[in-house]
């Protein structure tokens, strides 16, 4: 059959890494947007909305991403909603990411002192104005390091999409292992590629955190 050189293996993995990056980016951007919406609903002064979002977060933080993927991919179509691997991966990763980000960001919103709410309230600002001009800008600053830190989890989370046949780095690794019988080499390389993607993110999260602590 075909012979894979080391370069074949590496180049295929790197090519597949594009999809890992793309998936991560989609998950992060869509999850971020959804996360903001969940966050706003989660901290809104409306009990039912708060409760609903609490359940949403509990649900997606309390079940494996793998199961979420399976349900979106295999189970939703039975109810008439078509899902390709792309949409399934994007949808599941978005839901998963939004739940975690909303929870991280809620912590940041709550870290904004109560006095800020009260001062802006006594300036006759509405809830929306308080959020928009006073609380979110401050929360945003606090939120940068943990958000960058969480992006590492998103990148790693994309590995699970290999199981629904999505050919990103992990899946490519599995396929190549089967064609080459060199699991040690291939999975070692796969691990290194993830490390190369994630470690800079981890480092910058740490650096940002230090900077934030010094600035305070």
């Amino acid at each position, binding site marked *: 059959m075909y012979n894979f050189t080391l370069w074949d293996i590496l180049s295929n993995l790197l090519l597949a890494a594009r999809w890992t990056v793309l998936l991560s980016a989609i998950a992060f951007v869509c999850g971020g947007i959804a996360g903001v919406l969940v966050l706003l609903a989660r901290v809104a002064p409306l009990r039912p909305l708060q409760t609903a979002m609490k359940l949403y977060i509990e649900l997606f933080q309390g079940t*494996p991403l793998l199961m979420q993927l399976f349900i979106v991919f295999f189970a939703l179509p039975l109810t008439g909603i078509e899902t390709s691997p792309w949409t399934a991966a994007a949808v599941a990763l978005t839901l998963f990411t939004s739940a975690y980000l909303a929870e991280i960001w809620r912590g940041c919103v709550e870290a904004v002192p109560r006095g800020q709410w009260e001062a802006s309230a006594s300036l006759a600002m509405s809830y929306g104005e308080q959020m928009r001009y006073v609380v979110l800008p401050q929360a945003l600053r606090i939120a940068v390091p943990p958000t960058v830190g969480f992006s590492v989890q998103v990148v790693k989370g994309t590995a*699970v999409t290999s199981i629904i046949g999505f050919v990103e780095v992990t899946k490519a690794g599995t396929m190549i292992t089967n064609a080459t019988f060199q699991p040690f080499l291939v999975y070692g390389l796969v691990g290194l590629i*993830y490390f190369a993607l994630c*470690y800079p993110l*981890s480092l910058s999260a740490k650096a940002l955190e230090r900077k934030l602590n010094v600035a305070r």
Partner: protein
Amino acid sequence: MAYRFDFSSLADYTPVLVQGVATTVGLTLIGGVLGVGIGIAGAAARSSGNAPVRFAVGSYVELIRNTPFLVQLFFIFFGLPSLGVRLPEWQAAVLAMVINLGAYATEIIRAGIDATPKGQIEAGASLGMTGPQIFRYIILGPAMGKIWPALTSQIIIVMLGSSVCSQIAVEELSFAANFIQSRNFRPFEVYFLATALYLALAIALRWLLARLGDRMFRGGARV
């Protein structure tokens, strides 16, 4: 396409599900206990050991935290045998979970240790206590109490992450789900049920660990 839900066909597979849940719980228990143990040792080494030890522990933590669990699992199960280390699947799964949780726990517990006021350590020292005694009796308890919620979340993440162990034929809960749907062709019902079971496990585990934390670190919580 109108779909008729039919959970009845799952009844035949109750033993498979029960065994799946039991395996998931077992993996989490062993992985959790050993992982936290590694975390404590790692944190101790990282905050007191000599430079090479600190570097080694630091590298371990970063390596694990920046690669996916699935890849770690494959590496251990499929990759290590080429070095002559052949582990049966459940041992490989436990090892992967322990290594994974150990790295996160090291980082979490270290944060708790760093939060120990310097004066506490000096007070211990001025009473004639040795370094290890200070760590064991003064630092560890309050540090664990402080970071227990974070550790709880991480243990739950590892429990949920164990779902990918089905990939190396460990017969845990998601294995059971896949197994059943490949026999009865009812993915919606099966995955729905399995997801609900995971959620129940996560909630139960969080509750249990909270109780456990209250019990073990009751004093430490009052700071």
